[in-house]
């Protein structure tokens, strides 16, 4: 067993420097690596490029890094829900690259799988296709998209073991899965860190080989963005 444990979120983010490109898992506030984000917000790191489907809310998730002006550029499919984001974007302080959600996911997966580029129909005929190679396959137009190149991927799982094996829960799997192993170094924070042998090898979503650092998150708030219910 190759032990991937680090002590805490501070130790996990060691080596993340200003100007780097990070991948951050999560969809909305669901499955975000909240402990690493908090640790980054307490660090002096700035000028980050963040690849993340969304940008958090004002006082949680990536909103914390926006508030501290630590993000130079966001690569996302959907932003907003965040007044500070809007202000920085409209003032030109923050650069935003909007990418179709499936393309965003596949660009992560391509990096994870050592595929430098692939063709997708998404965005053909729109401004997303501008400046990109376009090609017909099977009578349908596609555009060429490239794998992301990131320094760190920061993902959040439900359970993990000392060897870095990960199991996600519910729809919190989302981008955490294709980002794991898609950067030079992958950090995983988990709600439950267990010794090797406790996870069923058949049920592991991400093998430990994709993860370089793992720790049990200090606190999980797991905030809900849209609490929708029905009466009993």
């Amino acid at each position: 067993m190759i032990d991937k444990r680090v002590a805490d979120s501070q130790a996990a983010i060691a080596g993340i420097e200003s100007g780097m490109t990070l991948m951050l898992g999560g969809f909305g506030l669901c499955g975000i690596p909240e402990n690493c984000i908090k640790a980054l917000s307490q660090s002096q790191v700035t000028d980050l490029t963040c690849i993340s489907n969304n940008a958090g809310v004002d006082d949680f998730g990536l909103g914390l890094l926006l508030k501290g002006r630590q993000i130079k550029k966001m690569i996302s499919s959907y932003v907003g829900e965040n007044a500070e984001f809007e202000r920085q974007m409209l003032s030109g302080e923050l650069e935003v690259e909007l990418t179709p959600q499936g393309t965003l996911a596949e660009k992560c997966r391509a990096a994870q799988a050592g595929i430098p580029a692939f063709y997708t129909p998404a965005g053909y005929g729109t401004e997303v296709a501008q400046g990109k190679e376009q090609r017909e396959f099977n009578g349908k137009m596609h555009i060429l998209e490239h794998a992301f190149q990131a320094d760190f991927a920061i993902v959040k799982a439900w359970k993990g073991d000392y060897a870095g094996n990960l199991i996600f829960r519910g729809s919190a799997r989302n981008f955490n899965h294709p980002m794991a192993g898609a950067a030079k170094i992958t950090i995983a924070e988990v709600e439950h860190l267990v010794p090797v042998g406790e996870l069923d090898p058949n049920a592991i979503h991400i093998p430990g080989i994709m993860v370089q650092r793992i720790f049990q998150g200090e606190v999980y708030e797991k905030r809900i963005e849209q609490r929708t219910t029905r009466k009993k």
Partner: protein
Amino acid sequence: MLNKEQIAQRIAKEVKDGYYVNLGIGIPTLVANYVPENLNVEFQSENGVLGMGPFPFEGEEDADIINAGKQTITTLPGASFFDSAFSFGMIRSQKVDLTILGAMEVSEKGDIANWKIPGKMVKGMGGAMDLVASAENIIVAMMHTNKEGESKVLRECTLPLTGVQCVRKIVSNLAVMEVTPNGLKLLERAPGVSVEKIVELTEAPLLIEGTIPEMQFES
């Protein structure tokens, strides 16, 4: 004229037994409420859920179980969770039988614009570009006109596009229209709305063959 609930109700009639369906945010979400219970239908949410059920009871919300609108949901027996790459893989490979989404503008050729208004804050396309580029069967749910009373069903979209030649049908508060190789065909009109009124409020030319029936609502 239909209200939003009635638009959803009309669209629900397009859902067939055995369909996997992806519902966009807004009116499309309401469609789930009107699908007859005897139909076997599964709802896909592009953030990685198949087999979505109703909202949870109060106190039973689970932060890990949400839909693409970031709302807390439940799942039904037979449900599954998967990652975002796999989710859009099933969308691109056309496993989803029906996609219902909103639009700011639709053209007579089936182009759709629903993500960006130049000069305004742009939130992003989310999964809409992947959905419209991939799905074979796309129905748009929309108001026929904007707040100024101008047609949103156009010869050409004026806003930045989300996808080209992809919309199959439009269900608005005034009419049901189908995109055909010859243009936009008027299929049904809302109760109490005349064909003349629809033509007047539609910038795109409409193919009108025979008598256009009024939409039927069972309930």
